[in-house]
């Protein structure tokens, strides 16, 4: 008996404003408890919320990035419930009129299983709405007292709700990753999952093909992609086992325990809250003019999908390379900046970023965003590779050396001057004088008569041996293509 899996996500992204959504208190992470709780955050009697325009701008930016409808008028509503970390006794959120309406996100799914190929999928986004975060209860005082830290209370969130379009853990993770990349790409969220800037709730249900949707359970507050994968896998199997053993699924909220790898119900629908939503009378409806929307649209960077298409179409990169280079804004920015300096060599630049640069970053556990050599510097280096001033081997050595010295040039002319000076002073220029190369080759052939004989009798593999000797003799500077040609000719006899 086969099963279909149905998954939808609700993602809370913390918007990267400096101040809270309804007050001027700071949103910086990690401050001492309650030092960022102003009168509004504490909900003193008489205080009122004032909407932070920066949060709205970020929501609009997101809506435009997923091709969504931006509501010309949306409404803030109060979600009423009691909890110590909710100082007003209600959360200001958006209910029936959210700021962002239906949109869609194209994702690239890499299936876990065997040799299945990556594929694209469009996930529909139902809505995205603005709301304030709650504070935090701090347990574990020695006397069993629970404290409340309201630093986080009022931090702006954009809750992004998808349609139940995903049908495997891989798709859910791919969607979450694409969303994570996008919100960082457009600069509305720092994406820091450890600090809770990007939190996922996953709704999971299973059904037999052709049957109506099964009852869903919601896995709350997943803050890593790995846990998301594990939690969904466990939950799906649990639901299938339950039904196959004659049980029924009851709607519930569950938590994932990373230590046991299991999901466990937190509360069932029976004790669900009646939140008594109603429009917040302290806030006016949020009106977004066409003009404001267009101003924000003008600030949107080229989006990953468009960029990917352009890299493939314009630069003739393959799909794999284009995907890697658009996996983050920083990566794409690095590539673009290098291509701007050396427009004739996108493929060469791509190879270097994905090869040497990525290897060095991985070795030193660095991100491309704090790469010790700038994209401009790399372009300067590759300019000399592409005009045959130096060969690839020399270029790698220059890169290795530069890595420890932070070559962060922003202007090509300066980077180029620095690289050229190094080539000049260390005598690293590639030898492309065919006479000089021929001389080296002649000497090697003369000194290795036995190997030459073997080669000529059909042992082709020895060609590399001769290249190595010749390269060594040229101190690594011989133009490899020329050397190849000359060696081949001379060895042929």
């Amino acid at each position, binding site marked *: 008996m086969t099963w279909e899996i149905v998954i939808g996500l609700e993602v809370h992204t913390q918007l990267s404003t400096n101040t809270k959504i309804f007050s001027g208190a700071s949103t910086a992470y990690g401050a001492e408890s309650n030092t960022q709780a102003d*009168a509004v955050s504490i909900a003193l*009697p*008489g205080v009122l919320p004032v909407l932070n325009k920066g949060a709205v701008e970020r929501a609009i930016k997101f809506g435009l990035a997923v091709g969504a409808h931006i509501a010309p008028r949306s409404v803030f509503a109060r979600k009423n419930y009691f909890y110590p970390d909710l100082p*007003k006794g*209600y959360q200001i959120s958006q209910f029936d009129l959210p700021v962002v309406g239906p949109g869609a996100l194209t994702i690239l799914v890499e299936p876990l299983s065997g040799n299945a190929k990556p594929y694209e999928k469009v996930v529909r986004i139902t809505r995205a709405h603005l709301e304030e975060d709650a504070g935090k209860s701090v347990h574990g005082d020695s006397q069993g007292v629970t404290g409340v830290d309201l630093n986080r209370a009022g931090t702006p969130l954009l809750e992004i709700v998808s349609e139940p379009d995903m049908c495997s853990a891989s798709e859910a993770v791919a969607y979450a990753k694409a969303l994570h990349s996008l919100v960082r790409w457009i600069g509305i969220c720092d994406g820091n999952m450890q600090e809770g800037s990007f939190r996922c709730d996953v709704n999971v249900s299973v059904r037999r093909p052709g049957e109506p949707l099964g009852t869903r359970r919601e896995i709350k507050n997943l803050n890593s992609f790995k846990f998301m994968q594990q939690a969904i896998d466990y939950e799906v199997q649990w639901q299938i086992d339950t039904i196959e053993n004659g049980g029924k699924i009851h709607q519930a909220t569950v938590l994932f325990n990373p230590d046991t790898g299991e999901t466990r119900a937190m509360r069932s629908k029976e004790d669900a809250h009646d939140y*008594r939503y109603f429009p917040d*009378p302290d806030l006016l409806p949020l009106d977004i003019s066409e003009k404001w929307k267009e101003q924000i649209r003008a600030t949107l960077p080229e989006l990953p999908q468009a960029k990917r298409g352009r890299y493939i179409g314009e630069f003739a990169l393959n799909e794999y390379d284009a995907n890697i280079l658009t996996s983050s804004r920083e990566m794409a920015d690095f590539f673009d900046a290098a291509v701007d300096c050396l427009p004739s060599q996108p493929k060469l630049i791509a190879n270097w970023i994905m090869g040497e640069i990525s290897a060095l970053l991985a070795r030193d556990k660095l991100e491309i965003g704090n790469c010790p050599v700038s994209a401009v510097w790399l372009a300067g280096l590759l300019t000399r590779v592409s005009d045959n001033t130096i060969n690839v081997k020399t270029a790698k050595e220059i890169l290795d050396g530069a890595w420890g010295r932070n070559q962060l040039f922003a202007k090509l002319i300066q980077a180029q001057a620095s690289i050229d000076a190094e080539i000049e002073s260390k005598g690293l220029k590639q030898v492309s004088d065919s006479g000089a190369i021929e001389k080296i080759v002649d000497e090697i052939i003369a000194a290795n008569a036995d190997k030459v004989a073997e080669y000529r009798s059909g042992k082709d593999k020895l060609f590399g041996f001769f290249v190595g000797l010749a390269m060594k003799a040229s101190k690594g500077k011989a133009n490899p293509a020329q050397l190849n040609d000359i060696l081949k000719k001379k060895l042929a006899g």
Partner: protein
Amino acid sequence: MFNSSLYQLGGALRAKKISSVELTQLYLERITALNPELNAYITLNPEISLAQAREADARIASGNAAALTGIPVAQKDIFCAKGWRTTCGSKMLHNFISPYDAHVIAQFNQAGAVNLGKTNMDEFAMGSSNETSYFGPVKNPWDKARVPGGSSGGTAAAVAARLCAAATGTDTGGSIRQPAALCGISGLKPTYGVCSRYGMIAFASSLDQAGPMGRSAEDLALMMNVMAGFDERDSTSLQRDKEDYARNLSKPLHGLRIGLPKEFFAEGLGSDVALAIEAAIAEYKKLGATIVDISLPNSKLSVPVYYVLAPAEASSNLSRFDGVRYGYRAPEYTDLADMYEKSRAQGFGAEVKRRIMIGTYVLSHGYYDAYYLQAQKIRRLIAQDFTEAYKQCDVIMGPTSPSTAFKLGEKGDDPVQMYLSDIYTIAVNLAGLPGMSIPCGFGDNNMPVGLQIIGNYFDEARMLNVAHQYQLATDWHSRAPQVL
């Protein structure tokens, strides 16, 4: 001195005929003598008041005095004032010292006025008789067996008994106008959004509005010049140019069209009140006004609409009083839910709990559409009635309250009877319009009657003119109760 207008007091202060410290002391002495019986004030703080008076005297000496500099003004205990206990008439906040100033308080401080004390009020402004206050009922200075009205009953009694030069009130469904009427003083509820609500403890956010209460329209104009104005901390505050509310006071009323809504003169209106109102209208005719009969057909729905919307907002606004961060917390409890339940059960009075229950009910799943949404629709119809009416008239007049002040305890067991005492004032809040009440005579038992004047949006200066001209021609507003 206690009968002087704010103009006269300001003049005397600037002419150094009296200092602010002397004036403040005189009022504090009078409060000490009379307040134990009237209970108009919840909190006095002579140290702060006199310190402000000394500052005012210095400012007067330096020649930088503004109109209200040095004048002792009482503040309804709904306004947060830094360093002052701010209770909102509730046990829930019996120990709450505000760490910040409401916008209105800050405006008075900037003007150099002296904060004379915090006046008594119905708990969280929920009441029409000042009997729901945790700090005990206020007595009407005209008859101490009677209520002063509510919720700004402490302010109304303090102004009537000359326990302050003027004072602030707030009006959600009539809480400035009804007590002004019952205590024989003048009170103005401005257009919604004219005075910032920042720091004013919320009852029903879409209806609450601060306003002045005083002995004359002229005094109210000076108070409005301090209280009104845009405040970016209140998103519902209106961004308008500053205006001088006294600028039109002396304009003649010739050609003024007064609309009389037939619904305000129907069944339920006390005959003594009706007589006084008719006499006032006759006086306006003498002053050159013409009378237009109008209708506000949906106004009869205003009480039920109000008692859906105001409790709905209140049930949410009062959720912050949970015993967690400030205010009252039950001394004993077993767990979190028990702490919430006991703190709120013990901290709130019966009327507040009744409205929280009503509000929670009407917002509940399955009832929201039938109550809250329906009430919002009718609210728009009520506002449209006024828009239609103002095509035919400049101001609307009628009674402020259907009866004069009733006896303490008389309506205590019957909330609906109590709610009906705001039957003529509530529609004004639902429409967001400005409304005022001025004394226009006396009814049965020699208790004051209030004339309600309702203006179009932002017509406060015109309304004050209309009231002032009447007060030039009559002396009802300068009658004082025999309190000593």
